[in-house]
């Protein structure tokens, strides 16, 4: 494995404190002496990334590398990525088919006709930049809502 190779995390046990998920996608940033510094992406909250060192035997190579025509841009932008990288992955507060209540009044929801107290059902199995798709009962369309603005009123029963 070498720099810019795409990898997946196979063994999460040693990295429990980082909330890394099995099969999280990552890009190798540095590789030496059986260890790699990897930029991982949160599959449950797209847009969130984390940089950590892992043992090479805990990751698998995906037979692909980050496209070479993006290397320069990636290197130029790396300090910004580093700044925004989190210290551990967030665990989504809500899951698909949880029933939720909007617990804030914000202009971005109000302009769509959604106000504090509205009840809806989560319709996506992952978040994007901390937002999930919610189908509100009194609203014909689903809309993306920040998970921090939601309160779970009924969890989907795990089956």
């Amino acid at each position, binding site marked *: 494995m070498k720099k810019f190779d795409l990898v997946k995390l196979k063994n999460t046990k040693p990295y429990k404190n980082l909330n890394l998920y099995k099969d999280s996608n990552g890009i190798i940033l540095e590789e030496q002496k059986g260890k790699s510094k990897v930029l991982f*992406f949160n599959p449950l909250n797209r*847009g969130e990334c984390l940089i950590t060192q892992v043992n090479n035997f805990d990751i698998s190579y995906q037979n*692909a590398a*980050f*496209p070479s025509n*993006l290397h320069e841009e990636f290197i130029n932008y790396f300090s910004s990525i580093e700044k925004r990288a989190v210290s551990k992955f967030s665990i989504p507060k809500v899951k698909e088919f949880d029933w939720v209540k909007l617990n804030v009044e914000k202009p971005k929801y109000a302009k769509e006709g959604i106000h504090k107290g509205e009840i809806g059902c989560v319709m*996506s199995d992952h978040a994007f930049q901390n937002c999930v798709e919610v189908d509100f*009962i009194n609203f014909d*369309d689903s809309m*993306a809502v920040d998970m921090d603005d939601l309160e779970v009123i009924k969890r989907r029963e795990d089956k």
Partner: protein
Amino acid sequence: MSAFSDLIKVDKNGRIYYNKWIEWIHLYNYVGIEREVVEEYIAVALRHCASCMALSGCYFFKGVMPKYPLHPHCDCKTMDIDINWVKKKAKAECKIEKFTEYIFTDEEQSKGKKALFESWGFDISDSEYLKNEFCRQALENYLSGNYKLKKLDGEGQRLAIPITLKNKTFYSGWLLRPQGLIINITPYGGKFK
């Protein structure tokens, strides 16, 4: 709607045909692992326009596509593609839980939608049929260009696609993904207007 002349193309054998479909392409157009990593993750890390990245690889009927270019200095391109290619690749996905866990749930909050479907003669035992019927009709309407554009953001382009059950037509909400994949978000998205 595009100009009529834009829709007429001549293939390499000199045959005239109507080209009504485009593929939206951002700077990079990959398939497989590269697409997953480049377009869904790095796009955000590198702060490329998330909406453009979400549109990359999506197929649109020319009469019903997002404003192009999407924004000033947009790097995206569109490429004419044949309807037969779209037909070959496109598919619709809908989780059965959209019915069993949402429409027909016993939750007090869902009574309106549950009552609506029950008034049409459906109950939870019809979930499998409904799932298949929604996929069939949504795919057929998408391929006919019979859909409306709804919200676009980094998650993707939402589509409102009409579904008809027992002579009642309404919209259902779908998310358009690359290569003609449409994924159901919500089975009932309001009255057909």
